[in-house]
């Protein structure tokens, strides 16, 4: 089909800043709630979209190439659906996509989104790309260092809440108590963020300690549940919309779930810049900025760990530095497209922490996953004979019944060990 071509990019201008609502796809459900508030602090009205279901997928399939990866179909589908369903005035919204850049085709999301908008006749909707490398200029949108820092903070809190919920909830005596605490803390943090609190200095430590203690005090039974880790392509790993409520399903199957945090991925992105210098002599200068960012994130990580260490029966995540050496056991750190070496590194981490049953969630036909998912299972098996890794493909055409059937098999094997 012939399509109209707009080569010019629609800018998100200063005038739009207060007036427009920025629509974001629902990638990390827990973290995004906090991120919404960070955006608000800087004068942006961010709405995280929660549309789900077939109509969203169909919208995605209609405007994005059918063979494109499933996360593109889901996340772009959500945004386009928002424009079509009448909940928003298309002339008063902008769209935002998170983007890591790099050799994976996922770095094309922004361009695909613009193309889809043009095909819908909505080429006037500005699209903001939020990425760690080479952002496009928008006079109305500036990611200042402090805003970035606070954004990372919401990732830290989000990871913390996710980690604690996953460890406590399967064992809670009073059903619903853990979820209540999660909601309570999200509310507290949002309240703090609104007043620009809990984002720097001592406030952070105070919060982290209080959160850990609060969760720790939840009354628990001493059952032994099947421990299952989740790794995968970033979208289908975290987004319940993308992975057919994988975490819920595992919980219903009497499992304790562990999902490595988002901060690791952020650090991985920074780290790759230095790796390019090491391997190819590229990024001679920009690597310093990234190295600095990596160090800041490491500091944050240390705080979380120092708090969690006070509770010996809780599982504490590995530091990023530890992750790199765990990853080195199975894959070279030069593999940097998509989730790259981080994905196998997380698998090793999970196995070493006792989560040797792992669901590797991947979009059907995901290119990096040929390498870092299915490609490394053999090595893992040699290294850890009891590892029980189950790759699951997610796709508009894949059915829940097949996915669940495979996971059940993994669980049956797990329960025998």
């Amino acid at each position, binding site marked *: 089909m012939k399509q109209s071509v707009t080569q010019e990019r629609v800018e998100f201008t200063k005038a739009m800043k207060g007036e427009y609502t920025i629509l974001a796809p629902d990638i990390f459900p827990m973290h995004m709630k906090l991120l919404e508030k960070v955006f608000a602090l800087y004068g942006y009205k961010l709405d995280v979209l929660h549309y789900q279901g077939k109509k969203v997928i169909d919208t995605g399939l209609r405007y994005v190439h059918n063979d*494109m990866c499933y996360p593109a179909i889901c996340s772009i589908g959500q945004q386009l659906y928002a424009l079509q369903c009448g909940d928003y005035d298309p002339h008063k919204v902008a769209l935002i996509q998170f983007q890591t850049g790099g050799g994976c085709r996922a770095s094309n999301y922004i361009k695909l989104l613009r193309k889809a908008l043009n095909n819908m006749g909505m080429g006037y909707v500005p699209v903001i790309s939020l990425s760690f490398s080479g952002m496009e200029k928008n006079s109305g949108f500036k990611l200042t260092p402090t805003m970035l820092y606070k954004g990372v903070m919401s990732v830290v809190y989000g990871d913390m809440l996710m980690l604690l919920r996953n460890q406590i909830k399967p064992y809670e005596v009073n059903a619903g108590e853990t979820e209540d605490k999660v909601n309570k803390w999200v509310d507290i943090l949002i309240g703090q963020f609104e007043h620009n609190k809990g984002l720097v200095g001592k406030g952070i430590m105070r919060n982290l300690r209080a959160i850990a203690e609060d969760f720790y005090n939840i009354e628990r039974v001493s059952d032994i549940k099947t421990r299952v880790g989740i790794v995968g392509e970033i979208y289908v790993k975290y987004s319940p919309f993308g992975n057919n409520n994988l975490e819920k399903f595992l919980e219903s199957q009497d499992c304790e779930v562990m999902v490595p945090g988002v901060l690791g991925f952020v650090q991985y992105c920074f780290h790759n810049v230095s790796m390019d210098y090491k391997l190819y002599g590229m990024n001679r200068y920009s690597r310093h900025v990234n190295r600095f960012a990596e160090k800041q994130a490491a500091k944050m990580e240390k705080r979380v760990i120092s708090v969690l260490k006070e509770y010996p029966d809780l599982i504490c995540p590995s530091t990023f530095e530890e992750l790199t050496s765990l990853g080195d056991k199975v894959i070279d750190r030069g593999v940097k497209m998509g989730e790259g070496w981080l994905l196998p590194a997380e698998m090793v981490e999970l196995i070493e922490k006792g989560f040797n049953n792992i669901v590797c969630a991947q979009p059907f036909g995901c290119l990096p996953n040929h*390498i870092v998912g299915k490609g490394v299972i053999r090595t893992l098996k040699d290294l850890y004979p009891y590892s029980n890794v189950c790759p699951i493909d997610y796709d508009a055409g894949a059915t829940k019944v097949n996915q669940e059937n495979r996971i059940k098999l993994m669980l049956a094997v797990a329960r025998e060990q």
Partner: protein
Amino acid sequence: MKRIGLDVGSTTIKCVVLDEQDNIVYSDYKRHLSRIAYMSKCLLDEISEKFPDEDMSIVISGSAGMGIANDMEIPFVQEVYATRTSVKKLIPGTDTVIELGGEDAKILFLSHGLEVRMNGSCAGGTGAFIDQMSTLMNITPDELNTLAKDHEKIYTIASRCGVFAKTDIQPLINQGARKEDIAASILYAVVNQTIGGLAQGREIEGNVLYLGGPLTFLSELRKSFDDVLKLTGTCPDNSLYYVALGAAMSRTEVVYNLKQMSDRISDYTSKSGYISCKPLFVSEEEYDTFVSRHSHDSDNIHETDTPADKMYLGIDAGSTTVKAVLCDEEGNIFFPSYQSNSGNPVPLIKSYLEELYKKFPDINIVSAAVTGYGEDIIRNAFHVDHGIVETIAHYTAAKKFKPDVDFIIDIGGQDIKCFKIHNGAIDNIFLNEACSSGCGSFLQTFAGALGYSMSDFAALAKTADKPVDLGSRCTVFMNSSVKQAQKDGASINNISAGLSISVVKNALYKVIRCASAESLGKNIVVQGGTFLNDSVLRAFEQEIGHDVIRPHISGLMGAYGAALYAMEKCGKTGHSTIATAKDLEVFTHDVKVISCNGCNNHCRLTINTFDNGRKFIAGNRCEKPLNLPNKSRHYDLYDYKYSLLKRYGTGNTSAYGSNDTDTRPTIGIPLVLNMYELLPFWYTLFDNLGFRVIVSPESNRKLYLDGQHTIPSDTVCFPAKLVHGHIEALLRENVDAIFYPCMSYNVDENLGDNHYNCPVVAYYPVVIDANVKSLKDTVFIKEFISIHNQKEFSKHFRKLMSNYGYNFQASVIKKAALAAYDEYNKHMKSIREKAGEFLDIARKENLPVIVLAGRPYHVDPEVNHSINKMICNLGAVVLTEDSLSWRETRFPTRVLNQWTYHSRMYAAAKFIAKDREPGVNMNLVQLVSFGCGVDAVTTDEARSIIERSGKIYTQIKIDEVSNMGAIKIRLRSLFSAAGL
């Protein structure tokens, strides 16, 4: 207490009852026709009749049993796990279990660390696949088994998914290959799929057990497994029931009163609903209006019973059906015939002609034309005057019904063809890629599987109130979607309607990829056998939102178009050369299959011999075996590029420089993926550093199969899968080291925003390292390196080599690198210069130019299936994308332009779109490897660059095996539409 094990599979339900000593006291299996609850109830009733008043435990297993188990709160065990339980108990000492079911294939490795493999989203290599293939051949699976016993040859059939295999088998059938050989080849394909897709690098060895329906019923399938695995597996008693047995053996405390249970189940309707679409017809009246409207679609074309003075014959030897029709000068239809192509179209046409001559001995056939897959063989067998591409045939016919037609969609048994008409010419062609074909026959197979005839099944859809929404993806996935819908309680009516709707959605959103229904056109003619089905027609109208024309001869349009074409081409005094009644009396047809040894492709040739010793050869990819006098020279840059690599010793590894006095250390380079471009570079580099470089041999089928067992991901592209074979080949050469570096970055030609390799090209060495066990005894240099910065390269390369104990002085490396860069540049330059030469020739001799845009590894004949030669045979000059891209500078694209190979493609497309070579008629054909995720991005962009200039974009998808027939249609249509 007795224990019941219930195995609810995708098509059957199996049940065993065990007594306290694990003896089987009852067993039964039934096809459930998706009435799972009802069938379960029947089985329970039978059991309770046989063992009155006994309470028993029940455990359910099986892929379709999870829903009912959940809802009825009956214990459930995963089916692979159940198999394992029963095997461990009944046949201890088993090392490997191979279990094939209706839609699943599984391998269980029991010894040395348990591993379980199940087929993924793909239903290839399963019972459903064998059923589909039998349907295609018009026989039962049992007959297929019997036929296979007498095979002489095995053909290569893609086993990855049923749809792929179909496109391989169809040409074989059409070319008249022996049924026995095809049958055996199908079973071998299943074996290859199971081993290639599931073993994933683990050897199948020791005591092997065969379980499940297909392996129980098909002795030849077991034999094929034995053959390929080089062992003798066993198929135990009750091999059908192992899942049910395992379920019965699973521990459970829950005991049921069977009577009560049976009552509960009969009350049961699935709790969860399913997603549905709008009904096809809301009322009886709506249906009647619909029927009466379409009864007027063909008002100006009539059927006649008596032939006119001059008659024109059209034959459409399609993939699943053979159609023939005559018409008079007004276009009225006479003596139509529509028959299933049960393997070989030749006898069908023969009997058609015989019947025609018998009934109308005086008929005067002025001219005849044939179209379709079987065009060549029918034309040769019966001296048909003209051959015509299917696309043109259909357009010719559609015009007759609607002169201003601007869009035609034809859904046949195996394929979807759509074309847009612009200014009276075919402007844009959409053919389904191998992955979504088989729509019509898919419906048919499904009807059969559910126990209905096609027409009964279709009729059910009219009354569907809540059609199942099955989505628009590859039809193979629909099997499991239907499974899910059945579980969720969808009635057969709603499934039938849902399937019709999904066929339509598949055509619109998968094949045509239309963003909106309005963009299709205003005057649409639908045709093809599948549209004879009212529910498909209705679904189509609903989806696009307006009415369309369906000619009453919808299924005959190809043949009718051919007849009209014959009329157009007959000339004034014309008389057809078609076989007369007399000719037919002495007509004979013999088929022999041989392997061509003309080149490395080793095409399997089917030699058809007719009476008088007339011969027709099919299956060839080039003209070599035809022994034709060399008509014209070929100007083929693919060939040239490939031959350039031979300088570096490809295809000649053991002979190359191997004398005993050569004591240099050897280094092996696999000729794969990006090495097709970088070989000159690395070869020169290592040569200058004092290595003897050994390059892996040319790809061929055997080389691929040698490496197949170590491929971990069966959905990766074929060029990547080939790497495994090349590595194995190098290992056999006993090289001191193998060099295959990871390269995130490619050379930078300043054509894009970045210069990446795709993830597969960049990191495949990692996959090789992790999965090819035998590599452990060799030095495998897979380190990361990039050559885009010459200065940095020497530094990093030196470090890299020293990691492996090869220490060189910086100056030595620098000098060698200089030579390497030089060689690489020369290599690229000679390709560009050759292109210039060819362009001059094209201009002088007025030859059309096809730029076959792919990636460097597409020059491998095993990958490109000699499509380049096919294009040359059609009379065009073939150029490559990299021979032209350098003449463009960077320009804005609508997609992120960040991969070097793809930047070249966009640039080449622009070069063509802008007509940079005045006086040369240039067109683009883009080669896409199946599974190439990056091409989901690039194809749309290349298309839009080309189409903006008003030219025709053509894309060809290639895989392990490709349907050359469909590719030929595409190319011929392009040639015809572009007026080449």
